[in-house]
């Protein structure tokens, strides 16, 4: 009971995972209170990441991370073809000996499967 009383005053980061449902129920669930909670959360994010005067290095790191993700999206197809290339390297011939064959990336895998005795990993 003593923990329930002190739970209300705690901030989100200090609440333990098991106490989370009771903490949420204890909070101000009026529309004003809910909006206020989201507003406070957004203000924290804004002051840390976006506000140039009060911000930390997190803001620039966010931009760099977005740039990395963007570059990954640009090179996704090339990486996909590289992944598919590995299937072509493990093609096994009729007599059981493994041949290392590289085929062009645009050849679909379905043809390899239909020729029989193709093991993919």
């Amino acid at each position: 009971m003593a923990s329930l009383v002190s739970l209300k005053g705690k901030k989100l980061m200090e609440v333990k995972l098991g106490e989370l449902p009771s903490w949420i129920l204890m909070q101000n669930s009026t529309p004003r209170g809910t909006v206020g909670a989201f507003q406070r959360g957004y203000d924290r994010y804004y002051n840390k990441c976006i506000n140039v005067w009060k911000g930390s290095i997190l803001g620039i790191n966010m931009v760099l991370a977005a740039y990395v993700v963007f570059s990954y999206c640009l090179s996704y197809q090339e990486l996909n073809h590289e992944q598919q290339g590995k299937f072509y390297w493990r093609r096994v011939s009729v007599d059981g000996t493994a041949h290392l064959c590289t085929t062009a990336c645009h050849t679909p895998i379905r043809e390899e499967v239909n020729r029989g005795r193709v093991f993919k990993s």
Partner: protein
Amino acid sequence: MNENLFASFITPTMMGLPVVIIIIMLPSMMLTSSNRLLSNRFHTFQQWVVKMITKQMMSIHSPKGQTWCLMLVSLIIFIGSTNLLGLLPHTFTPTTQLSMNLGMAIPLWAGTVFLGFRHKMKSTLAHFLPQGTPIPLIPMLIIIETISLFIQPMALAVRLTANITAGHLLMHLIGGATLVLTSISPPTAMITFIILVLLTILEFAVALIQAYVFTLLVSLYLHDNT
């Protein structure tokens, strides 16, 4: 494998549009400008770096050479920031393209040469013949000096391209080797991983050093011609 190794050096396009333009402009978008005396931390740090570079680079020049201050400081900041951004995973580095480096080196070198011919014609022509040359060697030496003059922009561009490209290729290869070795022999993979970490630290240094070397050489050519 060979095709995949150089796939990261292809200029990126998105639905036919060259995205490389945005990638080249990205470092300038990340550098701030402020008209306040006391700015925030990032801008103060940037001002400190620019001041250090300016003092280091421009102190040897005459007033005529110091008119190139903006050009040279912009050059070193651009090359340095582009190289550093290229060290992030999956990103494209514009300075790996010989076309771009030639586009930077040839106009700058040509500018310095024309400046020298325009303002100090005799002194510039005198550079083609070192002092104390034996008379029979003069024709050959003038040819050699002319060739060495025209090699300068090529060397500038190729040096930057080769250094950055080689570094990125090495990182790709050693990274690929580490991945493959993880399933075969973890202790060897650990050694290759340590090599990869050391190489990455080296690449950070190389990124900045190459920018400095490029700008220093342009500044030297300018100093010779002003």
